[in-house]
């Protein structure tokens, strides 16, 4: 249907977006790559030169690096499992006929609109704080010592905070998928004597697989870069107990002021993200065709 001139016009119209994204990707990436092989410390500016692979080997030899890798995996995996499982259950529940569905949904979606530093500082101070937090008050009312959440379970605390932020997103997407399921199908299964679990396992769950994939894809994109929550709560501590790969790079850049090392960490993070992206893109590509 398109004429020759409209094809040319189309190319011209796509060009700015492509050019800008290329710049946005390539320029910083090339600079990072360059710095990652340089000796470049802001605290000793006169010592410069090529560092070879030393910035990279520092990362691989640092015990903190493997801890950070583990923490990053725990964060992404933990939040995905919690939000998908709870999100499915909550979606099933609020898909039932209930009174006040509109208001209900507004309440459930609210955490998604809370900016990460607010979510983190509210949960840290008003809830998890060992003296003044609500959780501590509950513990003491039940006769227990307050739990030092951020001290003793820093990674779990961060996972809990991030899960709270992303649960509404998962719930909302899964609920939308549920609502497009025809009730006739369920009724037919019910009449055939399928149990509630059977209906879920063989009708509802397969129907929701596509939505679950979408939730996993989009959340992974955002979860790999989680930063604000750790910055406001644990600062990666105590020690390095809640340092993820992004936060470890941030510490190298801002605290240690070692640009070379931080750049090497950045390259490692980019490579890892691309490996994850490769698999995710294949998943999302399949879903686009239908």
């Amino acid at each position, binding site marked *: 249907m398109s004429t020759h001139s409209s094809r040319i016009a189309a190319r011209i119209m796509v060009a700015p977006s492509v050019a800008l994204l290329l710049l946005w990707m390539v320029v910083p990436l090339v600079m990072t790559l360059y710095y990652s092989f340089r000796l470049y410390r802001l605290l000793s500016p006169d010592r410069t030169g090529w560092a070879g692979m030393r910035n990279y080997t520092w990362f691989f030899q640092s015990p903190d690096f493997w801890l950070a890798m583990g923490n990053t995996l725990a964060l992404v995996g933990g939040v995905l499992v919690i939000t998908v499982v709870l999100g499915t259950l909550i979606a099933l529940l609020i898909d039932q006929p209930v009174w006040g569905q509109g208001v209900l949904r507004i309440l459930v979606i*609210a955490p998604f609109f809370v900016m990460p530093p607010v979510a983190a500082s509210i949960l840290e101070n*008003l*809830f998890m704080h060992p003296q003044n937090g609500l959780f501590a008050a509950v513990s003491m009312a039940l006769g227990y010592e307050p739990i030092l959440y951020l001290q003793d379970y820093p990674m779990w605390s961060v996972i809990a905070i991030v899960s709270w932020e992303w649960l509404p997103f998962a719930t909302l997407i899964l609920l939308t998928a549920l609502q497009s399921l025809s009730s006739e199908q369920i009724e037919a299964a019910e009449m055939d004597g399928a149990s509630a679990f059977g209906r879920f396992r063989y009708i509802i769950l397969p129907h929701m697989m596509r939505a679950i994939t979408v939730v996993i894809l989009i959340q992974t994109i955002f979860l790999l870069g989680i930063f604000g929550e750790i910055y406001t709560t644990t600062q990666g501590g105590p020690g390095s107990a809640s340092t993820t790969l992004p936060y470890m*790079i941030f510490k190298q850049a801002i605290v240690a002021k070692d640009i070379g090392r931080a750049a090497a960490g950045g390259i490692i993070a980019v490579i890892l993200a691309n490996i994850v992206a490769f698999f995710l893109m294949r998943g999302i590509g399949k879903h686009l065709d239908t």
Partner: protein
Amino acid sequence: MARATSTRRKLLTTLAAWSVALVIFFPVLWMILTSFKTEVSAVATPPELLGADWTLENYAEVWQRSDYPRFFWNSVVISIGSTLLGLAIAIPAAWSMAFVPGRKTKDLLMWMLSTKMMPAVGVLIPMYLLFQRLGLFDTKIGLVLALMLMNLPIIVWMLYTYFKEIPAEILEAARMDGAGLWNEILYVLTPMALPGIASTMLLNVILAWNEAFWTITLTTTKAAPLSAFIASFSAPQGLFYAKLSAASTMAIAPILILGWFSQKQLVRGLTFGAVK
């Protein structure tokens, strides 16, 4: 739903659903309640609810002491500015990909989305240095550019899925009537695409408002938006819980209200149209 449900069952599910919803919403509710308490009342053990000292003073004090209007204004300029600029660049791109698709269109879309996978912290240093050298550090225009680029793939994607649903016959009819390319865009496509553009705008304003990496690392004071304001507020020395809550409430209220009003459009946008 066609199924007849007994009132008893509906009552039970209503109770269960409301309990779950209140648990999820509770941190926001508790924050708002705390923001209206005096500092002493805010940290009282056991927590006070009915017997608490209620006050508006926290808001007055945060307002006076913290230069909230400037942070708020920075947030507004950065989130709306980056969204509008992004739309201006993305609308032609998404339009042409949806209506004049080539063989490479799908690959191009994939590639655009894949730029989102790059962890921001990986390119923090170059961005930091570039921003300082170009004089963009701690400026609103710098953040508008950074957030626009960050969200551009999402904007293109959302618009693409919306535009794809506009029937191509309408375009052909307009073309038969002799409408030129620009008239076609202006009078035929734009009105049909407006709902899609509106929800794209909403989602991106929210994403930009809540962005907390570039806004914290690329600003110090002048251009710092509310995310940086809260991050600096988050180490309350002793008894500043009520004020922290008031400041937090002030930081999220505009976007919370906007989000509630537009939740239906948001779902579509968030899933790139992959869930109906």
